[in-house]
């Protein structure tokens, strides 16, 4: 009974953590789907989102909701500008050249933050609530709110892609950019929009991470392994797959605590990548 409650607690924690991971994971996957590029600078955009929240919330005292919106807009805009300046000119050299350049871009963005804010760890000014307890399982209200924000972001993206004209255009470009061009859609514009939404979501992911943990310039790099693992597990470019992958990794990371020292929790992401690639080379949802 004790163990069962413990496992339930870990599963609940894992789902909450997984939902947060899912936000940057779908960002990575969305950009991959539309541009066919692994953009490693998602890591820095996570930090950009977090620092935006820090400025908006801790310095100006605005509420969380405003912070989320600002983080989306700021990191989305930085994403579009940096993609335009740094990565777009490289696309003719192939996706891997761009992927490697995106690591350099990540270094640039991370150090811009470092230049402005320093290396010191920042934290948000948040009220502390008493945990909710259901059948012996504890849930922190903050954790639950984060879960709601993450779920909201995912639902919003899902609705955009499924029901709106612009979302269908985005899927069309992801599927077949040449045909989309023939049909009158500008793949460049849609790519720009995908980068904006993708990096905006990475920023929202950064807010969620900031609400749970500390804010520092290299915070994105510390979570990038499970984020990539979630995207790979779901099949690169598959957005529902990335959500499923993130939830699996979130739960697996928590359950690993039963067997592994806490320090190795993030190794779960790597193991998940290897397992995924050996057994589900096209992702667990098996598309593309």
């Amino acid at each position, binding site marked *: 009974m004790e163990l069962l409650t413990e496992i339930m607690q870990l599963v609940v924690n894992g789902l909450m953590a997984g939902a947060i991971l899912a936000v940057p994971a779908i960002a990575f996957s969305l950009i991959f789907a539309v541009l066919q590029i692994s953009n490693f600078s998602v890591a820095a955009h996570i930090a950009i989102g977090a620092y935006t929240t820090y400025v908006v919330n801790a310095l100006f005292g605005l509420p969380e909701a405003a912070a989320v919106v600002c983080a989306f807009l700021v990191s989305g805009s930085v994403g579009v500008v940096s993609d335009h300046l740094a990565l777009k000119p490289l696309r003719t050299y192939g996706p891997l*050249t761009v992927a*490697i350049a995106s690591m*350099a871009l990540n270094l640039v963005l991370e*150090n811009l933050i470092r230049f402005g804010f320093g290396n010191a760890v920042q934290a948000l000014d948040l009220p502390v609530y008493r945990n909710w307890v259901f059948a012996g399982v504890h849930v922190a209200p903050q954790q639950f709110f984060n879960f709601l924000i993450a779920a909201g972001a995912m639902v919003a993206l899902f609705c955009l892609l499924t029901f709106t004209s612009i979302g269908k255009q985005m899927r069309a470009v992801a599927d077949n950019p*040449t045909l989309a061009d023939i049909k009158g859609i500008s793949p460049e514009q849609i790519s720009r929009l995908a980068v904006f939404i993708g990096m905006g979501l990475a920023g929202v992911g950064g807010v969620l991470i900031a609400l749970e943990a500390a804010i520092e310039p290299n915070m994105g790099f510390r979570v990038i392994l499970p984020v990539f693992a979630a995207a790979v597990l779901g099949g690169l470019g598959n957005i529902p797959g990335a959500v499923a992958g993130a939830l699996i990794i979130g739960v697996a990371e928590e359950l690993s605590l039963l067997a592994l020292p806490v320090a190795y929790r993030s190794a779960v992401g*790597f193991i998940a*990548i290897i397992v995924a690639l050996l057994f589900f080379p096209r992702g667990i949802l098996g598309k593309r």
Partner: protein
Amino acid sequence: MTTYVLSVLTFGSIYALLALGLNLMWGMTGMVNLGILGYYAIGGYVSALLTVKLGLPVFAGMLVGTLAAALLGAATCVGLVKLRDDYLAIATLGFAQVMALIAQNEIWLTNGTDGIGQVPRLGDELQGQSFGILYLLICLLIVALVFVGTEVLRRSPFGRVLRAVRDDSMVAATAGKYVFGYQMKALAVGGGIMGLAGASYVHYIGFISPEVFQPQLLIYIFLALILGGRGNNLGAVAGAFFVVIIVEGTRFIAEIVPSLSAVQIGAIRQLIIGIGFIVVLQNWPRGLIPEPLRRYRPPADPAAGQGSERAG
């Protein structure tokens, strides 16, 4: 000042070794390995542990460290090499992160974040500049040997197969097992060279900690190879020294601007490296010393509506 120049050149040699190893994996064989610091670290750690804890002579430590890294390279091949492009990049990045976790957490072995100090340095009985000169000469000798070795490899039939694998994915796909052996050898030898770099580092500095996994080093080495020209060994060496000079040069640029904190100066230096990387890639995509064009050109595919050049 002389000591400083000696140290810059010694680091240049160590970077050159890393770039030569990366050139074998990525430049010549086309495998994007973002886990290169894993081999570098294991070379350094193994050599440090053997010399500190078992008292082995430095040369033996370096040899075993190199072999350990080569083994790790071969092992990477088994797990990862079948993956294509982006997946390989992500998986190898993860591999290095797990190595970093082990270095941080297996305190009984690695001392964790405190690192391993008091590592015997090669030629330690010499004082000050004599040590620096001797060590630089040793490093340059190693670089020269590795350069000659990789250049022989590049010109050999073995090297031609590697380039064929890189330039034509059909070869890689259809020749399956046959190609696998070549890729494994390339990863093992490349990993070994990086391990040797790690061992050369640890017996120069006399200390190793999980700091060796700093992501900017990964960027430096890729920059060195891109600058020098992918596939070109001479370019890899030249690129490595060039990168060290830029990295060190930024130190002086940062000092010109007054009233900056140490963190800000560090950030500016990284910014310059990162921006430089992108500028080089945009303007000289094949490097300052491009690989001599002698390779097979696949015919343009008329079915592919727009020209999509394969690179990376």
